[in-house]
């Protein structure tokens, strides 16, 4: 906003280019074969050939989406519960549990979920769900416990019921912080979902692991870059939504 010109629209242009590149790559990976060919040895295929990259990308995104939606619902509901008078007893404990939970490495969660639910997508969903809970819960808690006291008082003074205060004042005001938690959670999940392929989940991790096993650097690179590009784009998109809601909240409370 400070300076117009090249600098102002360069980031958007870069993002647009990344989107176009990403779509072109997953739909028509053959176009990029000459670029990746030098990375392979002894005439190994340069483009992943045991499944469509587009299908894997969509499956990857679906897994992350399901896990994040479930984690958001549960984490926000829990945060609301422990910040109500009826649940306030659970607040200190829930804080310590979140701290403990964060020390569990995703690989361990993933591996330990296998005996309970078997191989495939389910253990990945469980690991992503559990791992995604923490940042969202923490941010929702921060959002709901650091609301400006005068606003909450005003809402109470205006005769709003507990439910009305929650839906019309507290949740909208903490929405930007909660969104920040969701953003963190999504980026972690996008990367963690790749590890899901070690327990036979169909995600982009399949491409990377195939590359590691057959010593094919081109596979590792394309799998890694697609996930990284998705993460950067989604991170940016959610940041923009976050700024938008924060601005709206600012206007409404001003």
């Amino acid at each position, binding site marked *: 906003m400070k300076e117009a010109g090249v600098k102002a629209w360069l980031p958007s242009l870069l993002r647009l280019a990344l989107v176009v590149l990403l779509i072109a790559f997953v739909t028509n990976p053959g176009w990029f074969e000459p670029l990746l060919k030098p990375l392979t040895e002894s005439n190994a295929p340069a483009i992943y050939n045991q499944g469509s990259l587009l299908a894997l990308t969509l499956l990857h995104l679906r897994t992350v989406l399901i896990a994040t939606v479930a984690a958001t619902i549960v984490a926000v509901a829990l945060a609301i519960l422990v910040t109500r008078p009826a649940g306030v007893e659970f607040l200190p404990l829930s804080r310590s549990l979140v701290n403990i939970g964060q020390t569990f490495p995703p*690989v361990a969660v993933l591996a330990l979920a296998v005996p309970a639910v078997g191989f495939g997508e389910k253990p990945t969903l469980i690991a992503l769900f559990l791992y995604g809970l923490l940042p969202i819960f923490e941010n929702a808690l921060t959002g709901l416990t650091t609301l400006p006291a005068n606003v909450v008082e005003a809402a109470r003074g205006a005769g709003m019921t507990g439910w009305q205060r929650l839906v019309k004042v507290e949740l909208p005001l903490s929405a930007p912080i909660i969104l920040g938690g969701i953003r963190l959670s999504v980026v972690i999940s996008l990367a963690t979902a790749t590890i899901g392929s070690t327990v036979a989940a169909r995600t982009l991790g399949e491409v990377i692991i195939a590359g590691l096993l057959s010593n094919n650097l081109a596979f590792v690179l394309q799998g*890694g870059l697609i996930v990284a590009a998705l993460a950067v784009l989604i991170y940016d998109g959610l940041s923009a939504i976050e700024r938008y809601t924060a601005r709206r909240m600012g206007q409404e409370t001003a």
Partner: protein
Amino acid sequence: MTFRFDKLGVVIAAIAAYAVFAAPFATLRANRIVPGEARSILEALPQTLGPLLLAVVVVAAVVALLKTPLILRLAASVVALAALALLIGVAGSFLTPEGNSFARISPASGFWLLIFAFTLLLADVLTRLNLSPSARIGVLVVAAAAIGMLLVSGSWNSLSILKEYANRADSFWAEGSKHVTLALGSLAAAVLVGLPLGILCHRVEKLRAGVLNVLNIIQTIPSIALFGLLIAPLGWVATHVPGAASLGIRGIGTAPAFVALFLYSLLPVVANTVVGLAGVPRAANDAARGMGMTERQRLFGVEFPLAFPVILTGIRIVLVQNIGLATIAALIGGGGFGVFVFQGVGQTAMDLVLLGAVPTVATAFAAAIILDAVIEMTSTRRRVAQPA
């Protein structure tokens, strides 16, 4: 006399009731990979001990359920956890058929749920006691010593996870020390590079956004891909730079894992250094300048000590994250506890997975508690040191 219920106690009692009446206490398997048969508490323990454990669980659950003094709740949770820990070992030897070395006894869902329920109670008591940082480390040391004693005494030796350990005792410690070296070594390297870089970013505003953006993007590369991508450049270094190979730099193995962990560690260290230095009160800096301190004196005498707790928080994040991520190093031959996790997943031998996962979680957990305590100590000391 009226009884009042504790809300958390209701949850704990419900979990305990389900665990005792509807879930198996131990699983008996003919060998390490076949599905097992479930055994309840009464079936898994010798005649007098089964009812005794039931009684301990019921009493502890009732203590949790009612509004009782903290000290009583503490005692109940500790006694229940100790009884469970001791008796699962007894169940192991009791259920193992005479002279059979293939049979595997492992704790089943009921046992884990009971442990979870009473750990919840213990965690709640400890949270409410609001322990000082050194007391928290004390509790950790006592718990670690108790578990260590159980392990050394051999009372858990008939459990499946320790049978897996017995088969791999040597490689367990070798992989364990590799794991810790990877996690701590990459942290040390990240601190050595990240602190100066953070200070530089704080001083030179133009650099800040660029460096943080690059580090942010590195974080988005999935760990297994980053590990894999480093194989090629390090392999090149090993073959083309004289002396590199003799330093242990190779395309696969520990070197790419170390570099990947180092790269992931940089962001939290640099970002927290920048945030910590930015949070130093202006007044403190002005006062230091007014006293005629040089730039260097101001950095080490004023800014750095004041920013220290925030920087330490970054280091805590990195350490816990690295201990977890180091498991993935096993995929590219980097060693660490991940070796057992991935072997176990490959063989569908869950005891082997546990052999890798349990020490990883325990190390990460201990590291988090210790560093949290240190962070609290340093930040309170600072508050006392400069009132206002």
